[in-house]
């Protein structure tokens, strides 16, 4: 595997920072939509070296963080079902439901397996014909096509012991919801890189067209993000407002048509509950009606918990996910809520804002930072 070093060159970083300082002429609140960006920004300590007037507002783009407690409770209920294997991506293991997590269930003897691709979940079903394999599938546009493919594959193989508990969420509707919220103040967007490789850049045209905010779709290395900031500032300086692609080594205008076809064949849009944000119309995808045999929610409806769980009242995950609050605004941050004992999902995923702050930001406060 070849990796390009220019994205990690300190000299390039210094040059971009100079350009940014030169162009920056006032406060700028930028929402990075994707959790991968949050991770990279916080991990590199970027806010220490940027002009203090540039603020990142961390967006709702961490699939683990926006999965509602009710959905976790459903997965836990299925994990307790006899002869059932829950297959899921690693981060979902630790997300707290209302009284347990999949990790705790696993320690108590439930069959919970971490998979790295959706087809691994199908393979589990083939290898364990006497068990039901429930693939707990969460994700944005990036992972939805691959998850959809697993259903197509299971159908081709004639499997009757494979089903999917899905929490698939879409970026554009939640951006609209965020922009329509008067509490949220954002001047520009860092567009999600991986999501855009699938859907293309065209999905974000409504942001400049209807909301008059620039969008730059960015790669994930700190230098990618610095270059994207430079492009946003340049748009502002030149009085432009449009969708631009910094991550041009991976993103095209129309995305990946084959992946988009899979999504259309397998899923249909539904109203979706977002943790901390609430329900948003047509912001989620669930399996099409003719594929209900693979939908764990319908297949095991009798196992689903009846009670709607309460979100922990001391947790402000929702406001953090909407970019209204920062982790340090939360009374539980770092004390009642830590990565070992998370209260909310933002502390669980490595892409969660709170987890990223917890791991990487303590030193800024202690040393007073190295802002110039």
């Amino acid at each position, binding site marked *: *595997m*070849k*990796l390009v070093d220019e994205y*990690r*060159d*300190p000299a390039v*970083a*210094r040059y971009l*920072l100079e350009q940014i300082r030169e162009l920056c002429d006032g406060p700028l609140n930028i929402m990075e939509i*994707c*959790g*991968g960006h949050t*991770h990279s920004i916080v*991990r*590199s*300590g*970027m*806010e*220490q*070296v940027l002009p203090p007037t540039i603020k990142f507002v961390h967006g709702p783009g*961490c*699939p*683990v963080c926006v999965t509602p407690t009710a959905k976790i409770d459903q997965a836990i209920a299925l994990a307790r079902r006899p002869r059932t294997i829950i297959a899921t991506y*690693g*981060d979902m*293991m*630790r997300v707290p439901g209302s009284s347990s997590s999949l990790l*705790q269930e*696993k*320690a*108590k003897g439930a069959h919970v397996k971490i998979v*790295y691709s959706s087809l691994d979940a199908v393979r589990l079903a083939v290898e364990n014909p006497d068990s039901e394999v429930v693939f707990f599938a969460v*994700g944005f546009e*990036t*992972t939805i096509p691959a998850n959809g493919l697993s259903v197509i594959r299971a159908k081709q193989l004639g499997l009757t012991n494979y089903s999917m508990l899905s929490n698939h969420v879409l970026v554009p509707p939640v951006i609209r919801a965020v922009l329509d919220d008067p509490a949220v103040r954002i001047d520009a967007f860092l567009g999600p890189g*991986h*999501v855009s490789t699938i859907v293309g850049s065209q999905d974000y045209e409504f942001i400049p067209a209807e909301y008059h905010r620039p969008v730059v779709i960015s790669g994930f290395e*700190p*230098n990618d993000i*610095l270059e994207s900031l430079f492009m946003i500032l340049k748009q502002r300086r030149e009085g432009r407002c449009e969708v631009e692609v910094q991550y041009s080594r991976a993103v095209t205008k129309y995305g990946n048509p084959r992946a988009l076809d899979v999504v259309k064949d397998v899923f249909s849009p539904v109203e979706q509950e977002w943790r901390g944000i609430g329900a948003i119309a047509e912001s989620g995808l669930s399996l099409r009606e003719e594929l209900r045999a693979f939908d764990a929610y319908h297949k095991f409806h009798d196992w689903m918990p009846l009670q709607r769980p309460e979100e922990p009242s001391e947790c402000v995950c929702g406001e953090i996910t909407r970019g209204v609050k920062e982790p*340090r605004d939360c009374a539980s941050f*770092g*004390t009642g809520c*830590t*990565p*070992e004992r998370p209260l909310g999902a933002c502390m669980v*995923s*490595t*892409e969660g804002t709170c987890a990223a702050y*917890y*791991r*990487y*930001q*303590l*030193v*800024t*406060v*202690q*040393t007073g930072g*190295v802002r110039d």
Partner: protein
Amino acid sequence: MNRQRLARSRPLTMEELPDVVQIAHGSGGKLTHQLIETLFVPLFDNPCLKALGDQAILDPSTERMALSTDAFVVKPYVFPGGNIGDLAVNGTVNDLLMGGATPAYLTASFILEEGLPTKELAFVAESMAIAAKKAGVQIVAGDTKVVERGAADGLYITTTGVGFVPKGLQWSPAHIRAGDVVIVSGTIGDHGASVLAHRFGIDFESQIQSDTACLREVVMAVRDLPGIRCMRDPTRGGLATTVQELSHTSGLNLRIRETSIVLQEDVRGICEVLGLDALYLANEGKLVAVVAPEEADECLRIMRTVKESKDAAVIGEVTDDIPGFASLETYIGAVRVLDLLSLDQLPRIC
């Protein structure tokens, strides 16, 4: 955020430990530390264990003896670049070496799964014999247990080693001073990446080889330099965990630079694919040395003459900026804290 948040949380009492043991209790991160500090240290109560070093240095009247033990449960037990056998020998031998001891004897205890092919066991035992010869140790005692099929995963090995520490030599994090230099003996994360790549069937153009190696030659080459404060091998938890432990024990700040840390290209590749941080990946043939500034150049020069440490480099310095915490200078010029990992590294999903 106030200073209080930076303070380490109060040690748990035994009742506060989780109801059931979780996988993360064996990952070398916070839960492992919690378990050790809450359960084993108080129960097995003795000064050697309390020091929480890589080895216990005993002090009989004639000669000072180092004692260390380690269990090996690696999955898969044969991986590119090594197997559980040479790992079990090198791991314990290296722990002895990190205290400046000359390794001398090992014991080995096996837990085998019913149904393990004899030739697999022979292959592993042979690797152990070869590794022991290379490391200059004799395996003088052992034990074998067999458990039912399914109750273990192939085989597990526990080795215990004894070594002798020269008169007057006292390596310890307590001797670290502000201004000291941090040296690492080569590339980082090779073993962890090799095992992960193999486990998940990720094929790169070339296979990532584990760095499993005996560090005897490296340590013997530099042991006489009086400026060496201490050494550690960054195994479970990786480089980040080791510099954090050294910062914590010394009450100083080990500050390392992202630009000075060298990764093999394939290791960086797998980290990007699986969303892992190489600083937290295990190494099995590397050491971190903290050295007085005036002897750093000489130490580096000598290390580079030895095969196992030919890529040795200075990766940072010791400061008193943030006492008890390690930090990383990122390549864009910011500085952030390096904490212990809370749980096993789990891959990103988007």
